[in-house]
């Protein structure tokens, strides 16, 4: 067939609606993938950007030593932006008061990501500002103003320098980068640091080099710099594990969503192509009798598919682009920052998806048309040898695999999603078949409408088994997505519950514990714990001097003998889990310690080792009795070393507690600190707020993708009902012609769809549970869970949705004379 004829046939098929569903299915495949990838691409960019604000950069190098100039030169030669910060603690003086503050000195380029927020008055609302304090000027946290008794424009002494208060600092992007940065913040210009003379040999300093720019260049720089052993390289994923995890999981979820969207669209394309081919058997038979050769038929229908595919791809790309713009528009107020400009990749992805869908899902049915025997035109009873299932399923499986691997770049995710689908298809094929058999027994006693429905289901048992599988697969994929989404969001929310403690208080003397507690009760919400802390250091292990032990164990990189916070506890804290050994009984008199697992590994310690500590000049021995893992995401204090009460109970300790403070009550800190000047308050409220903002945005993204994929799912349901429509319609049209009332037909259709839907729901729920459990444990690193509610909801929703969609698709049968229906089918 020549091209002109092919295009005319395509046009006529389109005009008569024959090609409509295939075109729409392909269009939706391309449109869904394009819009999801466009959105995900831009959102991922935006999320990474937003998270980068957390570092005030894309990458960070930190050290207790000054960063060499060479590092800056190398970074700048690669076209990267750089900035530098220096954080140290210092006592500052203003008027007659003094206060321990955390000083951050920054250069003019700071911050590279995010922005500084300042206010005109202490405790006033802030606004973003470009720039940093000028030389000779400082910006202070609001609460330092009453604490020092100073106001804007006055001078404060920092070391040997006298600096003017030029502003009120409300927030800085990388405040969370060093959570246990003690004390309120003072921001100053890096150029003023030498004049303060506070930086002396032995001072505790934290130098940071901030980097921003092209991702590849950043990674090359990482490889090129001599970082070990003194300089630590950090990206957002390493520096904040809770955000890093949330981002990783959100990315996996968005990919999973996109992947399911592709699969569902592929199934819809396959179904509509098969229906199109089936409806063209006679058509091809006639063409063949009129002299069309199998080669011509093949070329003609391939041309037709290519033509429709191209049109669908072009329309799909445009629709995907528009859809994503609409999503961005609708969500503009929720979305973080301005989204970066999308690349070409989403469009290429959309176009290739369309092409692969057409080739893998639609082509086998089209190729098969060339095998239609011309004899069929005079012998209608001559069936067409069915398309080999191996060919059609094989092509679909290969197509899915290619698409999924290419789309996700994640073999595991693809593997688990496909494994879920294969399990459902094989195992639940039998379940569906068995359910239908069961239906026949029930049908014997049923009334007419139901009997008709059940006999219809029986007669086309093979087709109906396939249909239950397809419905089931679509519902299952949607359930999987909903369940995983719920699990992820719950997991994120549980990390930082509302009203989680946002301030820690340390250095509370034993005689101050009650007083501090009462004050907190009055103005804030007391946190869950009160830990004793005692400073001490390790002096020996298994009677070997700490230095000798370190020399013996090459893996020990930490300085063992540096002083650290120790504590004792009766019970295992909530965020800890034992991995080895046993927790002590409350009454156990033997001195014991429990160690954090990784810390113990680094120190070369195992259960049963004997550790000797020096606490205030007194030596005490304790046996390592257990190992623990910690939840670093939990934002609660974690201890590497915990003693049994018997070991440390008698030692004088200071205490540590936490509380939740409403933002508007921030000045309570001054009351607290003025009454108890020796205690230390650590503010983590800004960290928590930042983490919550990012998690909320990720959650919204996840929900959006869910809606898009739900749309693909509905399309599959419509395509599947359409695919079986002809057989169902011709039978019922006959019943109608023989005098079946509208009510009988409607009842029969309703019955058939209700049963199909409910069975599909059962199949879907079984498959979803298996797949979700696998995904949760293998991909998302969550614990598996069973969801009893879906066992009721799945079949109910399946029955409802399929009945509604099915009845809408079959209403022409109810509303038009049977003769028209029968003629239309022929």
């Amino acid at each position, binding site marked *: 067939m020549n091209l002109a*004829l092919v295009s005319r046939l395509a046009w006529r098929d389109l005009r008569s609606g*024959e090609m409509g569903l295939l075109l729409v299915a392909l269009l939706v495949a391309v449109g869904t993938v394009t819009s999801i990838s466009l959105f995900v691409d831009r959102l991922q960019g935006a999320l990474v950007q937003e998270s980068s604000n957390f570092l005030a950069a894309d990458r960070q190098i930190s050290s207790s030593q000054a960063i060499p100039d060479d590092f800056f030169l190398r970074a700048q030669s690669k076209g990267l932006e750089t900035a530098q910060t220096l954080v140290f603690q210092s006592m500052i003086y203003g008027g007659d008061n003094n206060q321990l503050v955390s000083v951050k000195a920054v250069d003019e380029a700071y911050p590279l990501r995010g922005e500084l927020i300042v206010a005109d008055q202490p405790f006033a609302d802030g606004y973003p500002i470009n720039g940093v304090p000028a030389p000779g000027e400082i910006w202070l946290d609001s609460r330092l103003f009453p604490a020092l008794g100073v106001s804007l424009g006055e001078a404060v002494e920092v070391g040997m320098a006298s600096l003017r208060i030029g502003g009120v600092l409300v927030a800085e992007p990388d405040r969370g980068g060093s959570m246990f940065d003690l004390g309120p913040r003072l921001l100053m210009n890096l150029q003023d640091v030498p004049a303060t003379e506070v930086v002396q040999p032995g001072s505790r300093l934290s130098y940071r080099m901030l980097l921003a720019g092209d991702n590849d260049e950043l990674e090359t720089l990482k490889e090129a710099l001599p970082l070990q052993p003194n300089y630590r390289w950090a990206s957002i994923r390493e520096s904040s594990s809770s955000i890093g995890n949330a981002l990783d999981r959100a990315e996996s979820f968005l990919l999973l969503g996109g992947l399911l969207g592709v699969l569902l669209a592929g199934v819809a394309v396959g179904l509509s192509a098969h229906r199109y081919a089936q409806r063209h058997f006679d058509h091809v038979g006639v*063409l063949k009798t009129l002299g069309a050769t199998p080669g011509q038929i093949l070329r003609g229908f391939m041309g037709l598919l290519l033509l429709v595919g191209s049109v669908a791809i072009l329309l799909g790309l445009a629709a995907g682009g528009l859809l994503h713009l609409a999503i961005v528009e609708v969500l503009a107020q929720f979305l973080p920052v301005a989204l970066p400009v999308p690349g070409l990749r989403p469009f290429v992805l959309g176009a290739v998806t369309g092409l692969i869908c057409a080739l893998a899902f639609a082509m086998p049915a089209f190729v098969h048309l060339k095998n239609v025997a011309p004899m069929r035109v*005079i012998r209608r009873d001559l069936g067409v040898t069915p398309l080999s299932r191996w060919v059609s399923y094989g092509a679909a499986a290969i197509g899915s695999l290619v698409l999924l691997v290419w789309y996700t770049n994640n073999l595991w995710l693809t593997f688990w999603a496909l494994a879920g689908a294969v399990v459902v298809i094989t195992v639940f094929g039998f379940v569906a078949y068995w359910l239908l058999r069961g239906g026949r027994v029930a049908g014997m006693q049923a009334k007419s409408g139901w009997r008709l429905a059940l006999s219809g289901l029986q007669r086309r048992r093979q087709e109906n088994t396939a249909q239950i599988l397809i419905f089931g697969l679509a519902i299952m994929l949607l359930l999987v997505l909903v369940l995983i989404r719920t699990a992820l969001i719950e997991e994120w929310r549980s990390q930082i519950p509302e009203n989680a403690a946002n301030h820690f208080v340390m250095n509370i003397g034993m005689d101050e514990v009650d007083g501090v507690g009462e004050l907190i009760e009055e103005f804030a919400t007391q946190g869950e714990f009160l830990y004793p802390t005692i400073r001490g250091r390790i002096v020996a292990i298994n009677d070997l001097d700490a230095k000798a032990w370190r020399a013996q164990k090459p893996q020990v990189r930490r300085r063992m003998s540096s002083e650290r916070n120790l504590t004792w506890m009766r019970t295992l804290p909530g965020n800890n889990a034992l991995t080895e050994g046993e927790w002590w009984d409350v009454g156990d008199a033997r001195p014991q310690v429990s160690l954090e697992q990784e810390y113990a590994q680094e120190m070369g310690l195992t259960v049963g080792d004997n550790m000797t500590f020096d606490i205030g000049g007194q030596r005490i021995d304790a046996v390592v009795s257990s190992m623990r893992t910690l939840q670093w995401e939990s934002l609660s204090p974690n201890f590497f070393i915990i003693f049994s009460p018997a070991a440390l109970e008698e030692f004088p300790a200071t205490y540590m507690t936490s509380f939740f403070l409403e933002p508007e009550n921030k000045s309570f800190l001054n009351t607290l600190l003025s009454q108890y000047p020796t205690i230390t308050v650590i503010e983590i409220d800004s960290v928590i707020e930042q983490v919550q903002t990012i998690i909320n945005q990720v959650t919204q993204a996840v929900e959006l993708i869910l809606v898009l994929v739900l749309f693909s799912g509905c399309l599959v349901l419509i395509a599947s009902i359409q695919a079986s429509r002809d057989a169902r319609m011709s039978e019922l049209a006959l019943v109608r012609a023989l005098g079946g009332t509208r009510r009988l037909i409607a009842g029969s259709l309703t019955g058939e769809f209700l049963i199909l839907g409910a069975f599909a729901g059962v199949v879907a729920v079984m498959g979803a549970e298996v797949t979700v459990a696998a995904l949760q444990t293998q991909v998302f690193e969550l614990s598996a869970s069973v969801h009893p509610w879906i066992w009721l909801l799945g079949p109910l929703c399946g029955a409802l949705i399929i009945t509604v969609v099915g009845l809408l698709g079959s209403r022409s049968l109810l509303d038009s004379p049977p003769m028209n229906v029968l003629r239309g089918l022929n």
Partner: protein
Amino acid sequence: MNSDLPMSRIVVSAEGVTKVVPTAAGQLVILDGIDLEINAGESVAIVGASGSGKTTLLGILAGLDAATEGAVRLVDADLSRLDEEARALVRGQYMGFVFQSFQLLGSLTALENVMLPVELRGDRMAADQARQLLTKVGLQERVDHYPRQLSGGEQQRVAIARAFASNPKVLFADEPTGNLDTQTGEVICQLLFELNQEFGTTLILVTHDRGLAERCDRTIAIAGGKVAL
């Protein structure tokens, strides 16, 4: 129109044509060594009871189906030696068809259906020519109608116009009046013979209709898969 063919030249011949199909109960012999020859311009009716194998014979003579054994020649082509690809070319070049169930393409208008065989051959057919054919069958007012908008008789008239559009040497007709009432059947029959006469086509038809068979030059009766004598 096919005046270059001498009247006595054989256009269709079958020699020992046998068709056997496998069934659950074993091999079923539908045609059992059929021999026949049909001359150019001749009109032949193949008659027989239901299940006698007459439709199968028509399918094999027209190259729609392959014989299990035996040879079939059509004009100068040995159909039994050709594959489906080549048989299709022979059909496009020499044959026209009229079917009991009309077999128009539902997505094409009457005019487009008539133009289809010529387009398939890769030639261009003027729409005027197709219109003339539709006028000959009395459907000049309905050229742009779709098959579903036409009655059975009208659909069969479009099918006849289509059959003659490619100027075939042999026209195969399978129960052309089988789906029509007597009166309409008579009109269609009339039309078929008139056009056959006008185009000088060889006509081979399968029918139950005794009247239709009697209008043909010759009748071949099939019984039990053999030519009844």
